[in-house]
């Protein structure tokens, strides 16, 4: 037997595949791309959002302005109508009209004694409620 030991035949050993963490090169590039895309998307969305909101605000502001104008017109019209109604109710105008129609002033007005008392102007209800305005002319209210 020789001194040289026979070498065992060498066998190939299966090498374990490297774990993914050890080879991140390709994956890292993709992620950057994704991040960049996402950021770009967010920026674009934000820009569109801001522009959209601004447009909506402008639209609403225009609507509000139009409404203000309408309110102004309505208030103006209301004031005109109040003056017109008061002018129509003017006693001298009514008297003139009545005389034109051939009516004559009453010389014998008659009065009825009502069995039921009506709320008089300035009357305070017994239950302590608010002072009642004249029921014939309830005008001093918020809707005047």
């Amino acid at each position, binding site marked *: 037997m020789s001194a040289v030991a026979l070498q065992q035949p060498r066998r190939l050993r299966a090498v374990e595949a490297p774990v993914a963490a050890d080879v991140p090169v390709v994956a890292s590039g993709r992620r950057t791309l994704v991040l960049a895309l996402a950021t770009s998307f967010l920026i674009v969305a934000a820009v569109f959002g801001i522009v959209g909101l*601004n447009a909506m*605000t*402008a639209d609403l*502001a*225009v609507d509000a*302005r139009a409404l203000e104008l309408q309110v102004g017109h309505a208030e*103006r019209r209301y*004031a*005109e109508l*109040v*003056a*017109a*109604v*008061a*002018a129509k*109710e*003017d*006693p*001298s105008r009514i*008297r003139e009209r009545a005389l034109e129609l051939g009516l004559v002033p009453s010389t014998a*007005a*008659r*009065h*009825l*004694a009502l069995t039921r008392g009506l709320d008089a*102007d300035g009357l305070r209800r017994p239950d302590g409620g608010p002072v009642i*305005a*004249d029921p014939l*002319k309830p*005008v*001093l*209210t*918020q*809707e*005047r």
Partner: protein
Amino acid sequence: MSRWRLEDHARLSLRRIRAAFALFLLVSALAVAQLVDIQVLSAAEHTERGVRQRTREIDLAGSRGRIYDREGDVLATSVTSATIYADPRSFVPEVRADGRTVPAAGDAVRVARTLAPLLERDADWVEERLLRDAHFVYLARQVDLRLGEDIMALRLPGIGMLTEPKRVYPGGSLAAQVIGFTGIDGDALQGLEARHDDLLRGTPGTLRFERAIGGLSIAPGTREVAPPVPGRDLVLTLDRDIQFAAERVASEVIERHGAQAATVVVLEVGSGEILGMASAPTFDPSALRDEEQAFWRNRAVTDLFEPGSVQKPLAIAAALESGAITPATTFEVPDRYRVGGSTFSDVSKHGTETWTPSEILARSSNVGTIMIAQRTGEEALRDQLLAFGLGAPSGLRFPGEVGGHVPAPDQWWATTLPTASIGYGTSSTLLQMANAYAALANGGVLVDPVLVRGTVGGDGTLEATAPPAARRVVSEVTAAQVIDMLGQAMDGDGATGTRARIPGYRIGGKTGTAIKVSASGGYAEGEYVSTFVGVAPLEDPRIVVAVMVDDPQGDYYGGLVAAPAFREVMHASLLARRIVPDSEGQPLAQVVEATRDAAAEYEAMRAAALAVERAAAEQAAAERDTAGD
């Protein structure tokens, strides 16, 4: 040599570089300093300047409060009106600095012809304005807004429109002297408009907004509104219907008697509230004319007069209150009486009569009243007249109100007592006289007259004014006795107030006829002031009406001139305040039955009249036939 030059050149360059660097540092330091100044030290100022450049501030006018009568009927309000203006530069060619001539934007003649009919003006008048050497001329102020919009729709060059508030008085001349008026620029000038301007006038607000170049508003920009605060509405004590009746009667009495003026006051007993205060002639505050300035004053508080006999009840009240007389005291009254060297006489001749104070009042006897006053004494009479509110403003604080005159104690001469007792030598306003009667009707308590019930703010609730001051001036018994005498002055033989009676109501009142004081001193012969002051219903007085007619022609006695006017105003006031006549309050069934009877009677009369008419027609036809034959 060359080496030296090179070194020297390098050194020089280095110095230059250092100098340039130093200069750069200096300029940079200056820039930084300027930046620090702008950004830090003067930041606020520059921020404000920037805001000023891009923001615009507009004043928002606070609307003037309305004026209502006691029932909420509008007496004065404000509407938006149009003011039309022109820029005359638009109608002349413009020569620019470079010598070029820019043609006129519009043709003045054509624009004037278009505008003239719309503005109800002459075309020449409009054209003259359009060609003035000015930048701005008014063509029409405070015209109807629709007319302004129509004019703007024509798109005429150089013509513009502004909107501005306009005060309107829907009732025209109704209560004009009481309400007063504002000027075209909204300044309060007369009456309650001036007296309560602080309440009526609104507080202006502001609108701030950002604008772009060219002045256009930036829609989403900052917009700050400080809303204007409208003025408070004024609710008066006047009743529109009573006011109208008082004014109508005052105007009619002037026309009927050719008088210079007439004044009417209607007061509510107890509250001191003035229901009506009319002066005639009157004016329309929407169409003011300078020549009518004399009509602007509220004569009931600004004009003094010697009241004459309407002061007699006050003299009798003084006598009763002082205990000098009782209602049963009698006086031997001749028709002439000498006091302090002067002779006083009654209007109608009579023998010496035995009269009670009530009869003296009913006959309006000067002599009898002087005899009563002599028992009262000067001091008691003067004090009582002052207690009734004569000689001092009424507390109404109406612009131009006067206090009248009751002589001071050291000015009482021998004839002052007799003259003061019959309403001469003292002067008062009609409101003072009405209020003195209201005190008698109110059981002896004088209440300061009021014209404003309260104010109404944005929430629509009425905030009542403080109740007026009240004080007792005579006892309840004295007041009742005098009121009873006033009732007797309306009836019976020799009573002067019979023409003031109203069917269904018991009235108490007193006539007055006084010779007017002349402007040159003394009395104006043939010029009189006729008055009547009365209360109703007598059992429970609710209303006082005072009428004064200045210088009536022909008839001038208070009983003939003022009493009928009093009757009309009092009747209208009683109806307006829904005061049922003493004799009425009939059940509905009775009224219906009476109405049916009246209708049947009317039908019967109508049928009879028709029959007569038919018979007459037949007879006429027969006569025609006969004549034809």
